[in-house]
């Protein structure tokens, strides 16, 4: 009897996708909240035009999250944006999981091409600096140290922002 060759549909990585989706929400809200309180972040994004949109996306068909600059803050748009002015890609689910959990920093992820961008290269340098600040507020120093080239100083204000993010900031996005 002749062997039958059928197309194969691979499964879905449910657990990792779920974790990435949760981190996207936490990170998105942290961006929104921190961009209202942190002077450095406000200064960094001041060069972006109003209405500027950005998405982070897992390739080729994974979850994504969007941010929009409005009134000099970054508004979390969840999965409302399908396209944006500037896009950050994770090459696959495994890479996104590694970066989101966070076992790998963005510089290393760029170096290993697990993370890549589409759009204005100048935006990329600003975005990585903003990301570093958000990370340094979200995570304790012993974790951040492994992720970034230089740990930004945890000022009194940022320590306060960390408490705010953990209590209400992420919940409310304010």
């Amino acid at each position, binding site marked *: 009897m002749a062997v039958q060759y059928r197309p194969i549909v691979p499964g879905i990585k449910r657990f990792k996708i779920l974790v990435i989706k949760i981190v996207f929400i936490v990170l998105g809200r942290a961006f929104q909240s921190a961009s209202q309180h942190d002077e450095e972040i406000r200064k960094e994004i001041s060069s972006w035009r109003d209405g500027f949109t950005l998405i982070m996306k897992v390739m080729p068909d994974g979850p994504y999250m969007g941010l929009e600059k409005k009134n000099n803050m970054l508004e979390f748009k969840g999965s409302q944006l399908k396209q944006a002015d500037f896009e950050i890609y994770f090459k696959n689910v495994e890479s996104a999981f590694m970066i989101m959990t966070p076992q790998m920093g963005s*510089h*290393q992820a760029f170096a*290993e091409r697990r993370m*890549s961008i*589409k*759009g204005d290269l100048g935006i990329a*340098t600003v975005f990585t600096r903003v990301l570093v600040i958000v990370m340094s507020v979200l995570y304790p120093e012993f974790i951040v140290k492994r992720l970034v080239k230089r740990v930004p100083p945890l000022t009194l204000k940022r320590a306060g922002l960390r408490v705010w993010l953990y209590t209400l900031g992420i919940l409310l996005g304010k």
Partner: protein
Amino acid sequence: MLPSYYEFHNPVKIISGNKALDNLPSELEILGAKRPMVVTDKGVAGAGLVKIFIDSFGSSGMTIGAIFDDVPPDSSSEVVEKITSIFRQNQCDSLVALGGGSVIDTAKGVNILVTENSDDLLKFSGAEVLRKKMKPLVVIPTTSGTGSEVTVVAVISDVKRNIKMPFASTYLLPDIALLDPRMTLTLPPKMTAATAMDAMSHAVESYINLQKNPMSDAYAVAAIEIICENVLKAVSDGNNAQVRLAMANASTMAGIAFSNSMVGVVHALGHAAGGICHIPHGVAMNIFLPFGLEYNLPKCRENIGKLLLHIAGDEVYARTPESRRAEQTINYIVELRKALNELCGLPINLKQAGVTEDKLSEIAQAAINDPSIVMNPREMDVNDALAILKKAF
């Protein structure tokens, strides 16, 4: 040490050597091209290189679709549009860039417009925006420095909007890099030195930054060895075809290295100084290279130290204790700059290059927003940048 993961990509066919140019018609035929359009500049034409180029097509049965020889020193979108319309009018099917960095970038820009059938370059600016395989592109460098013949990038300025548009895409990689010693014989000493130091900084920066990998390292150290052996000869005895060909090879190898592992603060500062004070790129590289290395020393002492073997040779390397190798590498580069300065007057500080002190903070600000800093080992902030600029002043 092997990185936990890396990627390396170089599909460009390298054709190097005596009368390499005469292979061009058959190479174009392999690529399926019949009517190439040539992009070049007045300097190249004036040096008689276009004539050699046309001669190499003799008895090939191939028609050169058009020759545009008026690319300005800074590639601009207006010129790209002009060449694009000639390309269409003359029904060309491929591109040959005969020139230095500006000519090569211009040809890449034309290739974007003719491939995408568009007249607006800005739409395709940025990283990974392009999605189509392009027309055949052959690059014949007439300087030995930019490495553009093997890189994924192009920079074209939009004069009307007063912006520099960067393009980065694997589709921008040329099909062939053709290195013929005749094409660089007429390069004047100072330009030879400046472009050589550009190639040198490509190799050095690619070897020390975060994206380095065993493949890019191999190209980088090979390039450094060839440059150190030949650069002074190329500047003082420009007619030596052997030396010229060596420099062309080194430049292409350095290009392959940095196209795969990126550059760092030296280039970030150089792009900024070039944008604000119009210092030629190679001159800026020569000025910033030792200071950039010194700045990165705390983060990558071992890698800078290893470069000593390739810069100074095995005897010096063996003689130098491990703890002093990184400093020695920097010393050797400083010495090389001094020698070049004496030979042809290549500036070794910003003042000599015509920069005024009041511009430094503006340059520092631009440098930290330059994409080149992302893969640099040390995170450079605006104060760091200013400190380096003051040292280099």
